[in-house]
Structure formats: C-alpha cells, structure tokens
C-alpha cells in the first residue's frame, strides 16, 4: 500500500518547495505547487480507498522508539475512520487551496501562506492517519503550530499576533490533558498503538476508574482543540487570520480533531459512561452558548465562528450519547457547509473591500449572485431543512439524544431554533435590503474570480446532497456511512451491551423529524419577519442596550418579537457574549497571563544584582531545605544524643 505513505508526503513536499523557495519561486507557480500537492494527496486517498478491503491496514515506516517499556512506531493506520477524515481533509483542503489562489493573490506573503497551508495539511493528515496516540499527538501539536502561524499571518497587527498566541497557549492547556492521557495509557496498557490498546481495553469493565481518568484527560485535550467550554474563547479570536484559514482550520478540519480522537478511542469512552455524560452536557452547553452569542454578532466572521463553536457542541453532544457515527456524520456535513459559508463570507469581504461588518452590507444579492446563492444553500443546510445535508446529520444526533434524555433533546431543539434564526438573520442582513456601505465600496462591488467561485459551487453541491450518505432508517434507504463505519465500533459493542441499541419506533422518528423541521421553519419565518424586509438593521454596538431603536416598523409581530424574543434573548446573548465570554472566561485566561506577568516582575526583583543578597537567598534556601527534609529527624536525633 504505497499510496498510504504518499498521502502525507505530497503536502510535505509542497511545503518544502514553497517554504525553502520563498521569494525565489514566481508568483504564478506558487498556487500550482500548493494546490497540486493537495490534489495529488486527494487522489492518493481515492486510490487507497479503492484498494481498501474491510480490515485496517497498518503501515509501519520505521520504529520511532524501541526501548524496553516503550515501543512506538512511525506507523499509519488506514481504516474506515481515517479514510473518511482523509477525504474531508484533502477534499475540502484542495478546494480551499484553490480558493486561496484567488483570495490571497494580492498578499505579499503569498508563498509563505501556501507553505503554511501545506504544512497544515501534512500535520492534519498525520493526525488522522497515525497508527498510535503519539502520532496523533504529533499531528495535534503540528496543526496547533500551523494554526498559530496562520492566525498571526498578518503579523503587522499586534492584536492579530496576540490572538494567535492566545489560541496557541489555550490549545497547549488542552494538550496538558492529552499528554497526561497518553502517559496514563502508556502506564496502564504498556503501548500506544491503537489496535493493541483497544484489544487490551476489552479486559476492563464498564466504569473502571482508570479508564475514566484516561478518557477525561483526553477529553480535556479535545476541549482545547475543539473549542468547548471553557476553552472556546480562542476560536472567535482566531478569526483574525485570513478567511481561507478560518474555513479550513477553524471550521472544517482542525477543530474537529477532538471529535476524531473520541471516535477513534470509542472503546475507551464506551467503557466510561460517566465521561460520556460529562461530554454530552459540555457539548450541549457549548452548543447553546455559541448559538446565543451568535444571535447578535455583527461581524460576519464572528457569527460564523460562534456558529462553529455551537455546531462543535452538537457533535460532542452526539458523541456523549454514544452516537459516534452520527457525530462523525455531522463532522462531514459541517465541513461542507461551514467551509462553504466561510468561503462565501470571504467572497463577500473581498467584494466589500475587506469590510466585515454586516451593518455596512445589505442588498448584495444582485451584486454577487453566485456567492449569494451558494451562501443561501449553506444557510439552509446548517438550519436543518431537508433534503440538505445538515438536516440528516443533526436530526440523527437529536434522535439519539431524545432516546438518551428528553431534557437534553428539548435544549438541543432550542439550540437548533437559534441556529436557524441567526443564520438567516445573517443572510437577510447581508444580502437583502439596500446597500448601506460607502460609495467607494459600492463602486468596488464585484463578483469574485473563477478560482474563488468554483470551490463555492462545488461545496454548495456537496452541502446540498452530502446528507444522502446516511438516510434515516425510517426511509428504508441505505445508511451507507453507518454500514461503512460499522467495523470501527466492533469493540464498543463487545465491551458494553448498551451500545448501539435503538428503541425508537419509526413513527416516533418521523414525529421527531417533523418537529425539528417545524422548529427550523418557524425560526426562519421569524427571521424573515424581522430582517427579511431589509429595514431592521442591527444598531451600533454602543446602542445595543437601548433595543427599542432596533425596531423601526410597528407591525404587531415586531412588537411581540421585541417583547417576547428580542428583549430577554438579546439580554442573554449580551450577557453570554460580554459577561461569560469576555468578563469571566477571558478574565480567567487573562488573569492567568497577568499572574505570570506579575510574578515574573516580582521574581525579577529578587535578581537584585548584589552578590551578598544572592548568597543570602541561597543560604536561606539551604536552611529551608534542610529543615523541611530533616527537621523532625534531626530534632529527635539530638534528643537521643542528649539523653545518652
């Protein structure tokens, strides 16, 4: 299986050419190399898939470490799970490379950008293709590094550089958990290879303490990477990076690696219902929080960022109720429609001369038709209207959640109501009504070049039909995804008898489906009534508190909306955005930073530069150590000596 080793090799070569040849390679060749590397990698995935037969293939390139008690190979594992992830990564990756060729063409760091993108693809492929936890960790750190480099790509602006650093450091905090998980696995299983770990895991019982510890530690890593409460605030800040980066890294691929990790370790998680319950609640809370904050954001990328946080929450909610394949299903469809939305947003920003504020937009529907139509497709998909892709995956998650816990289901429905609302609000405000920007911007409005619209169209098609890989059982159509993934969950079925048992009747399933569609439709109608006429435009930030100005038209529905909906909900949204997010979590993060700064200054003051003081500190150190170590025993020894 030589194709397998080639998959990560092409992006690596692309990175080396574009990176080492930075400034020497002509500007026309750069995107060809970058996109070509990604495309070749995609072709290899395709070939590997065509040659793939049921059982996992392990390719051990060489032994990384082989000493007593620690054996780790540089190995790749190709199985159903990695194939799906690889398709998403290289497929969406190629489209985004293509898009960047147009989007970044005016930037001076063109070659550097493509080099970083290729390096990211390489790390991401290592992450999902690696055959053991250490490979996953290497990829995990690698994507974090690339994310840092790409967020801070425009590093002339210190805010951007700080956002990059925040993202990296928050991710590192998550990595602490991941690393501890790895060490725990190593101590308890004696190996890090997936197949061996999962084989040995069968000997454990449901609810064993050590498994709970391992799974919780790993989940902390996933929290950081996949932006779950409380480690989510870096993701909205990460929007400082170029838009293709947001689409590729902060929507489609990197942020889903936490989900990949849990699906990969599904045996361990199935053994630990406690962790699963924890994950489900964290996921649900994140989904609601993200959606609530998303309701009243005015930066087009920020809305999408919070939406990503919220959708990631749904995925974790799915994982938490043991619906692993549904979670993965949502990863796939989300990669399609969220990449589409981000790229569409990029196209809008491009047309608006780099303005991201939706209050300055409006009426763009006729100006940039392709972008608008594809954006609409993405918006419908994320809102969960059949037969678009988001409907299938989200509905599947919610069906499993309903079976697990009715309250969770109701809250999930609330979240999906909000999702449809804020997405259509975004759509109407951006594309309907009349243009509100400056004359200069209006003059400059134009549809993006072909290299940018082609990926949009492809992604729009995928967002529309992508859901057909997994039909609900009630339609008696094949659920190809589940059938394909089935071998991955073999061990989970063995260790926990409650895994994969479905009690829901077909009638109930239809009712649930109907309910979620109804909720989405009502929500869209709401959004249409408020924003559809293009007159209700969100006001400037300073006036948000005085919400009365928000409503110009005195239709009774608007008043109702204002009283019942806008007032309380926007207060909650405002509360979450400004109090929980900015004040609480950011404050905790910042205060950690400030604590480091403060103690750094304090410790610096000890460094007075005078030899005498240094020796004094040393002597005190020696005294304290001796007392700490031997105080009690010294005392008793002297007593003994005296008594003689």
């Amino acid at each position, binding site marked *: 299986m030589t194709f397998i080793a080639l998959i990560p090799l092409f992006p690596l070569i692309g990175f080396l050419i574009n990176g080492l040849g930075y400034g020497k390679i002509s500007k026309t060749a750069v995107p060809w190399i970058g996109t070509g590397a990604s495309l070749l990698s995609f072709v290899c995935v395709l070939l590997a898939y065509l040659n793939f037969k049921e059982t996992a293939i392990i390719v051990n390139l060489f032994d990384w470490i082989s000493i007593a008690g620690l054996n780790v190979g540089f190995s790749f594992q190709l199985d159903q799970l990695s194939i799906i992830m690889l398709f998403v990564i290289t497929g969406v990756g190629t489209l985004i490379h293509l898009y960047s060729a147009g989007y970044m063409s005016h930037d001076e760091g063109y070659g550097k950008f493509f080099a970083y993108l290729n390096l990211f693809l390489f790390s991401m492929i290592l992450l999902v293709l690696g055959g053991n936890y250490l490979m996953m960790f290497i990829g995990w750190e690698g994507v974090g590094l690339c994310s840092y480099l790409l967020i801070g790509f425009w590093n002339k602006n210190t805010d951007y550089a700080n956002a990059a650093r925040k993202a990296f450091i928050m991710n590192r905090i998550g990595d602490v958990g991941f690393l501890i998980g790895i060490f725990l696995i190593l101590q308890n299983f004696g190996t890090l290879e997936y197949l061996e770990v999962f084989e040995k895991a069968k000997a454990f019982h449901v609810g064993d303490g050590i498994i709970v510890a391992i799974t919780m530690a790993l989940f902390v890593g996933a929290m950081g990477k996949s932006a779950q409460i409380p480690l989510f605030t870096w993701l909205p800040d990460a929007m400082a990076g170029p838009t293709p980066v947001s689409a590729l890294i902060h929507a489609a691929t990197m942020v889903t690696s936490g989900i990949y990790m849990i699906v990969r370790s599904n045996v361990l998680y199935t053994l630990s219902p406690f962790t699963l319950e924890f994950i489900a609640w964290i996921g649900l809370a994140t989904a609601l929080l993200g959606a609530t904050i998303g309701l009243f954001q005015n930066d087009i990328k920020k809305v999408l960022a919070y939406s990503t946080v919220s959708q990631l929450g749904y995925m974790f909610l799915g994982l938490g109720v043991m619906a692993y394949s549904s979670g993965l299903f949502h990863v796939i469809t989300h990669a399609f429609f969220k990449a589409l939305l981000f790229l569409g947003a990029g196209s809008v920003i491009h047309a608006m001369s780099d303005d991201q504020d939706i209050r300055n937009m409006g009426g763009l529907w006729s100006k940039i038709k392709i972008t608008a139509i594809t954006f609409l497709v993405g918006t419908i998909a994320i809102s969960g209207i059949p037969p678009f892709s988001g409907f299938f995956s989200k509905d599947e998650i919610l069906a499993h959640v309903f079976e697990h816990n009715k309250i969770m289901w109701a809250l999930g429905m609330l979240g999906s109501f909000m999702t449809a609302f804020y997405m259509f609000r975004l759509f109407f405000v951006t594309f309907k009504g009349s243009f509100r920007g400056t004359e200069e911007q209006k003059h400059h409005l134009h549809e993006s070049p072909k290299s940018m619209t082609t990926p949009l169209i492809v992604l729009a098609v995928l967002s529309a039909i992508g859901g057909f890989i997994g039909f609900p059982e009630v339609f008696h159509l094949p659920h190809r995804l589940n059938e394909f993934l089935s071998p991955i969950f073999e061990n989970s079925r063995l260790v926990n008898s409650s895994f994969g048992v479905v009690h829901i009747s077909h009638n109930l399933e239809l009712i649930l489906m109907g309910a979620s569609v109804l909720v989405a439709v009502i929500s869209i109608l709401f959004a249409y009534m408020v924003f559809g006429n293009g007159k209700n435009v969100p006001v400037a930030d300073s006036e948000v508190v005085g919400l009365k100005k928000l409503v110009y038209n005195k239709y009774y529905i608007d008043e109702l909306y204002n009283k019942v909906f806008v007032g309380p909900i926007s207060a909650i949204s405002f509360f979450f955005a400004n109090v929980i997010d900015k004040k609480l979590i950011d404050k905790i993060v910042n205060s950690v930073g400030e604590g480091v700064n403060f103690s750094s200054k304090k410790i*610096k003051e000890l*460094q*007075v*530069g*005078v*030899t*005498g003081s240094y*020796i*004094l500190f040393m*002597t005190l150190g020696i005294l304290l150590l001796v007392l700490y170590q031997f105080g009690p025993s010294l005392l008793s020894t002297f007593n003994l*000596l005296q008594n003689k």
Partner: protein
Amino acid sequence: MFESSIDRIPDVFMKVPLVNFVLLATMLFVIGIVGVLIRKNAIIIFMSIELMLNAVNMLLIAFSSYKSDPNGQIFVFFIMAVAAAEVAVGLAIIVMIFRNIKTIDISILNKLRG
C-alpha cells in the same frame, strides 16, 4: 557510630569526644558563611570562604583519625591544593576589578541584574 571505633584512636584524643570536633567545625563553617553574608570587601569574603574550607578540612581530619583511615587526610591535601589554585584565580579576578574600578567593594558591582 561514635562508640564503635573508640578503641583504635590515639590516646590524646580519648579525652575529646568526636562530637566536639564536629560541633567546632560546624561553628567555624557557619562563621565562614556569616562572614560571606555580611562583608562587602571581596578579599574578606574570600577569606571567609577559606574559613569554610578549613572547617571542612578539620572535620575530615577528625573523622580520619577516629576511623583510623588515611583517606580523609589525603582529601585534605587535595582541598588545600585546589584552594590554592582558586586563590590564584580569585586574586587575579580581584586585581582585574581593582584595576578597572579602583575598589573591591562587591556591593557596587550590581550592573548585571533584573
């Protein structure tokens, strides 16, 4: 520990228990440390450090005698030789500083800090 080897030590030491030597050496050592801590003149500090080393020498000799083992005394020779080398280097450094700033007060040498 103190009793075990008492029959092998020379008569003159019989009247002085080992613990006295240990306490004396420790006192000298601590005096050396205190000297290092409170003095500002580099030469005096240096002398205090020598005092610490000599306290160690005395300790070694005392142990050596009580254990009837010559190794400790050999060690003392090494300490003396090495201390002499240290003196050579140390005085050279002090002279170098005196040439540059005309003082050997170490408390004003605090430009490297922070």
